[in-house]
């Protein structure tokens, strides 16, 4: 296995950073405004940023650990 898939992911992150920079630039041009952000959107962002949970394993009784 080589590092090429990693390079592709790295390039994707760079592209995402560029998109986020555009958002930051645009938002900063809005001036002194206050934004009412839907709570659901913040919750969604929060859950996206949460670290991945470990995979549950199924024991012999079919119960998840």
């Amino acid at each position, binding site marked *: 296995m080589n590092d090429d898939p990693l390079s592709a992911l790295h390039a994707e992150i760079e592209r995402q950073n560029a*998109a986020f920079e555009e958002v930051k630039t645009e938002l900063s041009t809005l001036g002194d405004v206050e934004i009412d952000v839907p709570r659901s959107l913040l919750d969604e962002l929060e859950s996206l940023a949460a670290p991945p949970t470990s995979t549950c394993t199924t024991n012999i009784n079919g119960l998840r650990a």
Partner: protein
Amino acid sequence: MTTVTNTNQAGNAAYAAGIDGGAPTTALSVEGLLMYCSSRLESLDTTIKQYFTEQQDRNAGIRDAAKLIAMLKEGSWNTGQKGGMEIVCNEGHLQNHANKANEILALWRSTSSPEVKKACETAFRTVSGLDINAYGDPSTSVDTIALRGAVTSIPAVDPAGAATQIDAIKDVQASLSKSAEMNMIQLQSLVSQRQLAVQMTTQLLQVVHEGLKGIAANFRS
């Protein structure tokens, strides 16, 4: 409800442009919102960075395992080795063993993979009869004098034994490959999650723009 409230000092007034009604909202300044979005991405980035490092380590481990396999397949080593007193009288044989032990030692020192280190330890002991951990100091190397002292610990290895030794390292390599594949899937999932987070901030920006357009329209009418 998505509301953009203009608190521009020049106007010194608050304007609201509602797009949706009823949903709970949190009022944030632009700066606050940017900080919030950045901190969430940074949190994700910390995890992604950790997975990246792990993936690079595993890939390096796979390459190092391949190097060890190549070392043990090189020339006559592929068919095994003479051991014990059979090699003690032959300076050429002793030197070959010392050279091979030093090759393995260099890989053991350079690899960051614990699995490959362990495989190197086993291979080193087979080739030299010595404990690789005694060669932790980078200035040390194996010479024929050390080999003479340990010669009775050098086992004879037949072709089947050599193949078994190589298969064991291939198993280590396969295990690292499997682990790297699982890690890669997790990493791809995290990058997709990050993409979603960035998309959400872009969508939020559009909503803010629409809100501001609404404010401007209210001004004109």
